């Protein structure tokens, strides 16, 4: 009886031992398959986009970038045009010009506002506050990063936008000097949905990304160079400008470009706050406009009514343009980080 139990235990032991020996191979094999999946998904997504967008690219031509407006044409008509072998509803005409400009304008505004505020806040959090103050504040900013974008949109369109249009925009619009660049801020103050409100909402959405990264970078700067600067009689602004910021420059650029990428690709909040125009750019900073991402999500319903499928194909072309811009921004960030890490390393920096 006893011997039998012992033998069973030995067998069980041998099985677990055997499994432990081959376990490493299982982990490695599974990991190798899993790591290929993002690459496969990326290739799949790009392939689908290109295939779907091909008819639209052929018909819309280069003029797609300069034209503006979405005209589905007579999608219920029985006769369709055939352009270069592609079935297109009579009178259909598409252009992405205003959408591309709107995308770039709104995300540029977001970054211009978010970057200095984020760096300033990161300085306040790391250099000026005891941990028991900065930690809860830091958690608050992390919470901001987790708030769903649809809630940013809801707040932007129901609360922030109307408030700004009533109390802030008219003052700016009436007092801006009529000189180039600044005259963009003159004119009708609008009702709250539009370019500047969208830029502000986007800025708030990317602030957590830049602030959190910058804060972590600042806390990694070793104290000795900073103390050395202070010992030389530098003020804290001079230490910040000549020691801390150069030390972490590439990281901040990387985080900023990540934020820019998020602003370019942000969809639902922009769809709610921008006014979602398809055909025209904002006449001034307070005017309504549209972006690539918002157009893709708002136009799906009407695009599906086009029996030839040309409208859905055009949406794919919008998606392709948006993807190319986002990926280019992303890769540029990698390049910048690499180059500045090589050239801009301050003396004494650990390799």
């Amino acid at each position, binding site marked *: 009886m006893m011997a039998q139990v012992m033998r069973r235990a030995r067998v069980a032991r041998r099985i677990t031992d055997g499994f432990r020996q081959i376990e490493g191979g299982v982990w490695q094999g599974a990991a190798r398959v899993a790591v290929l999946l*993002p690459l496969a998904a990326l290739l799949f997504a790009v392939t689908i986009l290109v295939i779907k967008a091909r008819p639209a690219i052929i018909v819309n031509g280069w003029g797609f970038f300069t034209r503006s407006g979405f005209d589905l044409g007579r999608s219920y008509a029985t006769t369709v045009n055939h352009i270069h072998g592609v079935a297109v509803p009579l009178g259909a005409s598409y252009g992405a010009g205003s959408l591309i400009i709107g995308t770039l304008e709104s995300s540029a505004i977001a970054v211009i506002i978010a970057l200095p505020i984020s760096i300033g806040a990161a300085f306040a959090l790391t250099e000026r506050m005891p941990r028991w103050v900065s930690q809860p504040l830091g958690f608050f900013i992390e919470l901001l990063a987790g708030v769903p974008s649809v809630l940013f949109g809801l707040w932007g369109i129901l609360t922030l936008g109307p408030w700004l249009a009533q109390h802030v925009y008219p003052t700016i619009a009436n007092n801006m000097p009529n000189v180039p660049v600044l005259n963009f801020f003159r004119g009708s103050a609008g009702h709250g949905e539009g370019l500047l409100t969208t830029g502000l909402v986007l800025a708030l959405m990317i602030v957590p990304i830049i602030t959190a990264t910058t804060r972590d970078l600042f806390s990694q700067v070793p104290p000795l160079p900073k103390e050395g600067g202070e010992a030389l009689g530098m003020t804290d602004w001079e230490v910040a400008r000549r020691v801390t910021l150069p030390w972490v420059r590439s990281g901040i650029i990387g985080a900023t470009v990540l934020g820019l990428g998020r602003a370019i690709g942000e969809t639902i909040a922009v769809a709610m706050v921008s006014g979602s125009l398809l055909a025209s750019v904002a006449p001034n900073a307070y005017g309504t406009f549209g972006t690539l991402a918002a157009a893709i999500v708002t136009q799906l319903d009407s695009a599906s009514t086009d029996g030839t499928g040309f409208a859905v194909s055009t949406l794919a072309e919008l998606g392709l343009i948006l993807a190319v811009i986002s990926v280019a921004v992303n890769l540029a960030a990698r390049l910048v980080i690499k180059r500045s890490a090589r050239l801009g390393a301050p003396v004494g920096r650990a390799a």
Partner: protein
Amino acid sequence: MSSHALPGTGRRRFVTIGFRVGTYLSLLMIMGPVVWLLAGIVVRAVPHFSWSVLTHPTTGESGGLENAIIGTLLLMAGVLVLAGGIGILAGLHLAEYAKPRKNGKESGSLLRIASDVLSGFPSIVLGYVGYVALVLGLHWNFSLLAAWIILSVMVIPYIAKSTETALRQVPTAYREGAEALGMPPGYALRKVTLKTAAPGIVTGLLLALAIAGGETAPLIYTAGAFADSPVSMSLTHHPVPYLTFLVYGFYTLPENASHYLAYDAGLVLVVLVLVLLVAARLVVNRTQKHSEARRG
């Protein structure tokens, strides 16, 4: 007059004070809107909130949130399994198996670039691909499976990154100790390396869940845009209701009851995100204590 002892000293003092004020002002310019945003959502929702909202499904353009809450949790559960499994394994590969090549270059750089590019890929474009390839192409229609796959593709790079970081922070001494004790490599990986990195991995998972639960645009293309559809456990051919669409789709409807439902959905979303983030924070804090106790 000591501040004017050196040329430019007055200007320096002025700039420094400006800098200090500027940093606090920046912090205020972030905190102000954050409080305003969160308070705005809570204040809009609370006056019309009743607990019955949580237990009744959406009917037509009003009713409750029960089906949307279950739908959102179902979406998150699928993402946890699918993206969690794949993302952790991908991070494991990048941290443990992609060894440096002989020429000194890090291997796996193509895979890492692919992961980075995918994480910067606009979610709406992924949603569109899901719509064309899965919803229409494979005739799944708006469905749970299509939404799971697209959401997972979105967050896998994120989970892989946080897993890789967590694994890289495991002290070399732990691995060496395991090897010195004669543990088989795979067993050591599971029992020592992964166990030590677990808190970092779990934190990444929780944040990825928060992202998945708060996503809207790609879901409109894959899970559908039908708020009052019942929750179905079938993987295909049944649209999934979810909270973010209630916010997006209902705040513009004519009836006040619809607006209140949208605000309630916003409140539930904020609570959901808060729970996930606090959980992540607790995991981090707990392990920090743990590791200090070990070292001390």
